[in-house]
């Protein structure tokens, strides 16, 4: 586990969190290099399927982040997204996916520090949780299970 480097996929809105990440970078703030950013126009665009696809493709954790309520470039995309996340995160928890594997946050373009801190925090948490083997095993089992049955 010591050499486990978490693989974190972050879906971020282009107007706030992506700009926040940019700020963290240009301000030379240090944060773990375990995160891959995927930029989308708005958190309202982030479908639950994105999160599942990320896990299917080997993510150990997913971060979803966008503008603070009231700041949405499209007025209410993040408020719609908030309702969906509420339900979807409960569903994931219900089927036994540790809530530490999916993080939701609001990070504005000015919050470079918050972005760097959050990535640090999430990375540490996922490092403690370990690789998302149960999902990966399931993915691997896709090849074997059928032949055994």
């Amino acid at each position, binding site marked *: 586990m010591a050499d486990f480097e978490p693989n974190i996929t972050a879906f971020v809105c282009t107007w706030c969190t992506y700009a926040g990440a940019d700020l963290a970078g240009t301000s030379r703030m240090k944060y773990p290099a375990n995160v891959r950013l995927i930029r989308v126009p708005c958190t309202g665009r982030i479908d*639950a*399927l994105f999160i*599942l*696809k990320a896990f*299917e493709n080997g993510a150990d954790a997913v971060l979803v982040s966008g503008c603070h*309520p*009231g700041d949405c470039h499209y007025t*209410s995309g993040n*408020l*719609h997204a*908030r*309702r*969906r*996340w*509420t*339900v*979807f*995160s*409960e*569903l*994931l*928890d*219900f*089927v*036994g*996916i*540790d*809530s530490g594997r999916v*993080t*939701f*946050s*609001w990070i504005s373009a000015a919050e470079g520090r918050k972005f760097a801190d*959050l990535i640090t925090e999430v990375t540490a948490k996922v490092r403690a949780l370990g690789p998302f083997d*149960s999902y990966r095993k*399931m*993915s691997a*089992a*896709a*090849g074997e*299970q*059928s032949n055994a049955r």
Partner: protein
Amino acid sequence: MPAEGRQLEKLRHLARHALESGAVSLVIGFAEGTVPGRAAPLFCTAPADADRLIFDGYCTLNLANYLTRPEVRAHQTVALVARHAVAKAVVGLVQESQVDPTRVRLIAIHCPDLDGLQQDVAWTVADGLQTLDEFLPTAAHLHDQELTPERFAAVAQVESKSSHDRWDHFAREFDKCIKCYACRNVCPLCYCERCIADKNQPQWIDTSSTQRGNFAWNIVRAFHLAGRCIDCGACERACPMDLPLMELNRKMKKVVAERFGYVAGYDPKADLPLVTFKKDDPEEFIK
């Protein structure tokens, strides 16, 4: 004549009269099944067909499912033999603009929720053909029974397990899934012309019935019904492999009720909880 027999006569009379009078051109109800313990959907277009209508505790299929079928849409006005769950699905379909409420009539059946298959249930039929608006007040009092703890017993049992055990539980259950999509195809609210599971550009959900493909399908099905599922249980009864689909659906129902104070199937004019928002929606899970 025993009470049940009188109700049956009344049901058939209503259907016959609806067709004779031209109020509707199609009545969808149930006929005796081909084997004991089953009932079969019946499409009555001639008054005489009404004589084959029955109702009992095996009539569990949600007939509202047929309203979105093109063959049924071709009819100007359609009547459904509708126990409460069927009417709730009609509410959902109207709410989502899939069905024109002026083209639907209900032959309302009042009976207990048909959760499992049971032959003997006490039922009565409403006095006349009803529009959805006429029906709704007669069922408004049932809203309070939607959230009783008994309904969520299975959910509570899963919730009481550890995260790890919940994962194992669902992994075991989803593994049984053979991807026949009976759950989707009997669901009155799964009306999409092309389901996300059938889309391949991109292929969001693996079509293969692998553990991974089954997981994605079952999660997404439950999520797409969140706030829309009217808790009729048709999916779970249709599942040939006995997946506990209602555990997921009821969990979603519970979350939506707790978080957004909404129960599906009562108000055709309400906003769907997942396509609307409030400024002060709870967000304690968001960092």
